């Protein structure tokens, strides 16, 4: 019995199961020698052209670079550099479509050649045997060499693997089993010496028992050239392999040459084998002996639509379009351009995709030579696919599971051992795109696994947080008990208070700069107005989504019980009319509003900000209110949902327009604010409050609308009166809301004006907030009690609508008047509630809230910023101090950055 080594020495070859014999089509492109093409107008170099991480950019836009100059610096995680393929100027650095089946954009460097093609300084090694392994590996690493057979695995990592496990066989892959591709064939014919030199460098690094060079017997010239070049080295064995696809697959080649099988999920090194492509070895030889980094490669340009199919030296980054044009490209209908071979290559969505390190072939077939796939038919379980599978999988079973999304079963049937060679789909009589099914399933499984990990982490964090909250609660209770017991409480506390006040003062001083920065940033944002519409867009989107869901529900309801809705055709029309009227009234009101406020704010920047915020809030409210009636309509649109939808859309559009109008006017105002930064802090606070109010108002409006729609179906009698009454009621509610708003507005302003007594200020602020809330609630309750709604009326709908609109407009005017009044006399107006009982309740609530707020304020002022930080994320991280420290550092960094930005801003700001 011969040992494995002896068998290999004697030239024994093994078989792998399955495999197919597609038409080879190699002679199309292997007749001419490797050509050179003119420099393209520009080169696109993706930072990532291999498996692993990006390098770090070394150049900036506008830099001039020399040929061979490194553009990125490799870091950890298998990252590789990219080099300038020719001399020129970096014209841009931006995401460009990548050489990936998805063509999703990836960060790329755009290089405009200067035509000089002048090299940077190269440092070739005259005798690599003098270098130690690490130096050689560094050369390979910094030359940016990745596996050029297709996968793009960093070569230096492979070369380094001998450290961990001895390499018994170095397998050189010159099989090139894919039809059409002849890049390796031609390279072996023309540059056999350099390839052998590359092999010897790897031999020097890895010292394997034997080097096995696998070349399919359909490349006799290549075999001859390689045999001649390797004649001096008895350790290099050239093997002609029987032609069968996919014998060039890494696993299959290892099996054929050594009879070994790479374990599932493992790498060839696990069985003492290392595989290198001939192109890679050529690049290694160039890098070591000539000092040239990887900047070009052989690409086969072939297919029936190419006039001169041939292999060419293509600079990395050359667009496919340039390659095709140089070789003469005559596209046909439904043209496909494939990067790679016909079995495993992928079609390109555009020809403006660059050649990367793994691009071995550009195939532009017509529809006769490679027929477009027919329609998928039923699987007849003929298992021709299983017979063709080189991995002995059961493709047909996998396909059933993939279609049924049975991912557990797929893994059980070793889906992840599939090499996606396409043999199964090639033989399938039903033309099922099997590989596509597997790819989708694989991607899905990978994502699910990631998600699982993420869910697990989320759960951990959630539980840690819950624990922390419970602990805090307990601590708080303990503290309470303790403080109740202590007798010297009052004295201590007063001490504490004064100390706290001191601290707060200091803190305020230090923070004023930050706040000023925030304020300025805000002013700037408002001025250029880019972020604002962005915001509204998102909000609108969210609202739309929710509305859609609601509409869907409403439709379903309508289908289920059309008789539920009292109103028929008439009431729907009413609703539409009412909505339009309302929208118009609102728009008018807002316009007045906006102009009013802008007039007022001309002198006082602070007031201006407040007014602007109010205006924005109104706009938002209006938008939402209009949305609401629209929804109402759809509720009622049992007979003709389409019309209702159209009407709703119109109403919404109008609301949007109104919102934009007010926004524009508000946009103008903050600009003024920034002109007078006398009291930036106050302004910031005011702005924040204003925004908070805006939100509240929006919510109120929503609630109102909700209650309105609730009232809709309830009362169909005497609609006109009811409508007027409703409008009045609403107006009152609004007035009340605004009153409180105004008063709260005034108070916080005061608060910030008196920094001597922070505690009082906090209390006041809390009271103000509470009042605002109370008002909101009152308004809500009132609207709840509202008897009817215009849209429900069956008779005389138009008049009613008009009346309602007028009433509403009046109400608004009244509200505004009241507003102005309350500005003058805040005490009086706030004492004006209509319902004494409610007021009493509200007052009680306010008091309670004020208390709580005061306490909170105290705690806040007590706590130093660092403390606060700790309390924020102590919980999930407390176990791992390291991580906590890291996050703290991150926050600190963020702060520093913000501060820097603020300073920057200050510097930039002329005033």
């Amino acid at each position: 019995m011969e040992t494995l080594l002896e068998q290999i020495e004697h030239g024994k070859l093994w078989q792998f199961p399955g495999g197919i014999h597609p038409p080879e089509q190699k002679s199309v492109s292997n007749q001419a020698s490797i050509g050179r093409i003119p420099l393209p107008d520009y080169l696109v170099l993706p930072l990532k052209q291999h498996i692993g991480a990006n390098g770090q950019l070394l150049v900036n836009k506008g830099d001039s670079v020399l040929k061979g100059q490194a553009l990125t610096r490799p870091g950890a995680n298998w990252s590789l550099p990219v080099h300038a393929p020719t001399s020129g100027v970096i014209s841009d650095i931006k995401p460009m479509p990548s050489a990936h089946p998805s063509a999703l954009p990836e960060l790329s460097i755009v290089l405009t050649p200067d035509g000089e093609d002048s090299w940077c300084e190269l440092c070739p090694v005259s005798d690599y045997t003098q270098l130690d392994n690490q130096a050689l590996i560094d050369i390979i690493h910094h030359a940016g060499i990745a596996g050029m057979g297709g996968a793009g695995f960093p070569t230096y990592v492979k070369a380094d693997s001998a450290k961990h496990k001895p390499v018994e066989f170095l397998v050189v892959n010159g099989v090139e089993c894919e039809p059409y591709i002849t890049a390796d064939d031609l390279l072996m014919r023309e540059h056999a010496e350099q390839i052998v030199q590359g092999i010897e460098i790897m031999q020097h690094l890895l010292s394997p028992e034997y080097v096995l060079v696998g070349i399919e017997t359909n490349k006799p010239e290549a075999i001859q050239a390689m045999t001649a070049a390797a004649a001096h080295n008895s350790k290099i064995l050239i093997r002609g392999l029987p032609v069968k696809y996919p014998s060039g697959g890494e696993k299959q080649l290892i099996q054929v040459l050594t009879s070994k099988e790479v374990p599932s999920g493992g790498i060839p090194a696990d069985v003492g084998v290392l595989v290198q492509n001939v192109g890679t070895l050529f690049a290694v030889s160039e890098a070591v002996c000539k000092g040239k980094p990887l900047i070009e490669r052989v690409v086969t340009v072939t297919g029936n639509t190419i006039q001169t199919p041939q292999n060419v030296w293509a600079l990395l980054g050359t667009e496919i379009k340039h390659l095709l044009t140089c070789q003469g490209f005559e596209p046909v209908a439904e043209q496909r351009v494939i990067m790679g071979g016909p079995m495993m290559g992928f079609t390109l969505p555009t020809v403006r995709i660059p050649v990367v390190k793994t691009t071995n072939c550009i195939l532009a077939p017509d529809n006769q030579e490679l027929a477009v796939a027919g329609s998928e038919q039923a699987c007849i379980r003929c298992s021709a696919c299983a017979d063709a599978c080189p991995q002995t999988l059961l493709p047909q079973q996998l396909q059933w599971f993939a279609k049924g999304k049975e991912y557990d079963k797929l893994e059980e049937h070793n889906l992840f051992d599939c090499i996606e060679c396409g043999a199964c789909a090639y033989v399938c009589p039903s033309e099922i795109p099997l590989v596509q099914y597997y790819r989708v399933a694989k991607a899905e499984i990978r994502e699910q696994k990631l998600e699982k990990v993420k869910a697990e982490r989320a759960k951990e964090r959630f539980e840690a947080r819950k624990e922390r909250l419970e602990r805090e609660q307990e601590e708080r209770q303990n503290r309470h008990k303790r403080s109740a017991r202590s007798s010297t409480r009052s004295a201590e506390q007063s001490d504490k208070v004064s100390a706290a006040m001191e601290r707060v003062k200091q803190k305020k001083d230090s923070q004023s700069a930050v706040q000023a920065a925030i304020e300025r940033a805000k002013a700037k944002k408002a001025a250029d107005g880019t972020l604002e519409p962005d915001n509204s867009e998102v909000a609108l989107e969210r609202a739309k989504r929710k509305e859609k869901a609601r509409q869907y529900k409403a439709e379903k309801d309508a289908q289920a019980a059309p008789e539920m809705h009292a109103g028929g055709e008439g009431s729907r029309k009413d609703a539409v009319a009412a909505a339009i009227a309302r929208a118009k009234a609102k728009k008018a009101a807002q316009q007045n509003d906006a102009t009013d406020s802008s007039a007022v704010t001309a002198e006082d920047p602070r007031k201006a900000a407040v007014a602007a915020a109010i205006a924005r809030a109104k706009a938002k409210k209006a938008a939402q209110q209009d949305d609401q009636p629209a929804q109402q309509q759809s509720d009622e649109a049992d007979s003709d949902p389409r019309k209702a939808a159209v009407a709703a859309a119109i109403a919404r559009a109008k609301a949007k327009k109104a919102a934009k109008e007010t926004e524009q006017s508000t946009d103008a105002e903050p600009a003024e604010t920034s002109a007078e930064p006398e009291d930036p802090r106050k302004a910031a606070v005011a702005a924040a409050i204003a925004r908070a109010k805006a939100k509240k108002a929006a919510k109120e409006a929503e609630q109102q609308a909700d209650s309105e729609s609730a009232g809709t179906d309830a009362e169909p009698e005497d609609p006109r009166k009811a409508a007027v009454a409703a409008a009045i009621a609403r107006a009152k509610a609004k007035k009340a809301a605004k009153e409180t708003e105004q008063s709260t507005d005034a108070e916080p302003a005061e608060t910030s004006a008196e920094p001597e007594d922070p505690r009082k200020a906090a209390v006041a602020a809390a009271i103000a907030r509470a009042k605002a809330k109370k008002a909101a609630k009152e308004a809500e309750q009132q609207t709840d009690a509202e008897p009817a709604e215009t849209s429900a009326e069956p008779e005389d709908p138009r008049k009613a609508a008009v009346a309602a609109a007028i009433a509403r407009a009046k109400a608004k005017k009244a509200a505004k008047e009241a507003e102005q009044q309350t500005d003058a006399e805040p005490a009086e107006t706030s004492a004006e509630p209509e319902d004494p009982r409610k007021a009493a309740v509200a007052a009680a609530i306010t008091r309670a809230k004020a208390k709580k707020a005061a306490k909170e304020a105290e705690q806040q002022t007590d706590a130093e910023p660092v403390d606060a930080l700790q309390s924020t994320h102590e919980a999930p991280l407390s176990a791992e101090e390291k991580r906590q420290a890291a996050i703290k550092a991150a926050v600190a960094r963020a702060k520093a950055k913000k501060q820097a930005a603020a300073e920057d801003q200050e510097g930039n700001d002329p005033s």
Partner: protein
Amino acid sequence: MKLTMASSPHNHSHKTLSRLMLTVIAACIPGILLQSYFFGPGTLFQLLLALLTVSATEAAMMKLRNRPVWPILSDGSAWLTAVLLAVSIPPLAPWWVTVIGCVFAIAIVKQLYGGLGFNLFNPAMAAYVLLLISFPVQMTSWTPITEIQATPLSAFDQLTLIFTEQTLSGVPLAEARQVIDGTTSATPLDHVKTAVSQNLTVSEATDNVAFGDYAGQGWQWVNLAYLLGGLYLLKTKVINWHIPVAFIVTLAVCSGIGYVVSPATQAGTLFHLLSGATMLGAFFIATDPVSASTTNRGRLIYGALIGLLVYLIRHFGGYPDAVAFAVLIMNMAVPLIDYYTQPRTYGHGASS
């Protein structure tokens, strides 16, 4: 310029489903020709009738399921079912037997399970068994070969027999099927079985005008023709060798042992191999991909068990031939066989 996107591989072997099915049908032709040469053109009439019926049934089912008719019909699988059923039915069976069989095969066995690829059982054989159980008289009385027919039947006679159950001149079906020596015709397998049950030896039973050198007159040649078609299928790689080889070898071994043990009551190996539907079953019926095992080891087991069942039923069972029953029984065992015969995937388990 808009580029077309597609998933790899971008090439195909051009062996499509319909080509596969039509190849199988073509491989049946020598058998069909010999069959109609020996037993009269009745087989051809049955074939035509079956083809029409399955086409109509399939089209109707597709309409009911709201699917396009032509793409499904043109895959040829229904026509193959028609061919297999038509050659299994006695040439002079009444027309409604064929029609019922075809409708049952397509509508119930195939489409109700979800169409091509989803049927658990071989449609042709399921229909054959249905007919055999429901209409035993019509299904078991085979026509004698033309040379020994008591009343010579013209092609037109056969046609009218199929549709009216009597010839133009009024000869009823039973009489038309009589052999010259006055006995009614049965298949050679049936004949031997009856003889053995009457305590005759096999050699006495086969000493009859209806028997040739190895098996029944005509039957042996028909079987050889199907063998030829089967070899063609193997050569064109439409079917794998596993099932037919396992089937034939097992049947040969079993019948050989039986003959050695009891030559008087057991027919010889050649008789088994060249009688009934042995070759048709081995190459055309058991190899139906949809209902057969899908792994290579599974196919060996599947084929061997069919062979064993055929022998056991022929010898010990109540029915003279057994291919249909054996295939249906093994169809039921396929999921189990497949589950336990999954091949070892590359890189899994022990290897050098």
